[in-house]
């Protein structure tokens, strides 16, 4: 016996001769699988807004999210009124100034502009 070569023949024979699974064992294993398989989420567990969103999406397709957002924004504008829209502009004080260019930059612009 030369060793490795002959052992490889034995191992190859063993690999080809895996035992057959009996139908009874397979049935038991699949019964276990069915017993412990998590169930897909039931409809009753989905909260109301998800159902409403799903219904809107079904009716309006891809426009549903944008439509809903626009509707809510329209209601908000209508309720708040155009004269009291500071909330929309933020909390900027009336005296606040936004400096678009630094003073030194303005000076340089004058110097080189002439």
């Amino acid at each position, binding site marked *: 016996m030369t060793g490795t070569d002959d*052992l490889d023949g034995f191992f190859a*024979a063993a690999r080809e001769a895996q*035992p057959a699974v009996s139908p009874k064992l397979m049935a038991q294993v*699949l019964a276990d*699988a069915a017993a*412990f398989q998590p169930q897909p989420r039931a409809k009753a567990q989905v909260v109301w807004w998800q159902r409403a969103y799903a219904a809107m999406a079904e009716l309006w397709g891809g426009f549903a999210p944008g439509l809903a957002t626009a509707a809510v924004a329209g209601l908000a504008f209508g309720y708040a009124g155009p004269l009291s829209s500071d909330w929309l502009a933020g909390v900027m004080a009336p005296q606040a100034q936004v400096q678009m260019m630094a003073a030194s930059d303005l000076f340089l612009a004058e110097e080189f502009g002439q």
Partner: protein
Amino acid sequence: MAFDAGLERSDEALLALYALGDPAAARDLAARLLPRTLGYAARLLNGDRAEAEDVAQEAMLRLWKIAPDWRAGEAKVTTWLYRVVTNLCSDRRRGAGRRAVPMGDDLPDALDEAPGSEAQMLQAARVSALDGALADLPDRQREAVILRHIEGLTNPEIALVMGIGVEAVESLTARGKRALTAALGQKREALGYYED
């Protein structure tokens, strides 16, 4: 035809589908993994078919239970399953004591029922001789040799299954193969290996 028809899903993907409630995933996983699980358990338990079936069913049951908590990317399903089977078989061997199985009594069913051509009978005799020689190995050597040379795992995978280092795996398989060579050498000619 489904867009992914013909593409074979990985064990991990099937397990994820099972956890999401797909019943077909359980069938596919069982068809793929149960024969390997049973074959490995049978060899570790020296051919005790009833014990091996119990172990295979228990290992698969643990797989179903862990599926919802399976963390993808951390381990291969097969590696995890081999580890479970190894531990279950160790427990059974400790509990029941080691049983010697006479050579020739543990031919696989498929070969038992096949028409008896000479080549098939020779293959069956080799398998039987190997199983008999494997049964005489120390448990850890037997586990390492079976995982490496019959189940086809890599040494790092075997190290994970057995909870030891890669060097220890190499040592166990080398010693196991030397012992197998010595044991099977005596039956060499009877099993169809002739000197040139």
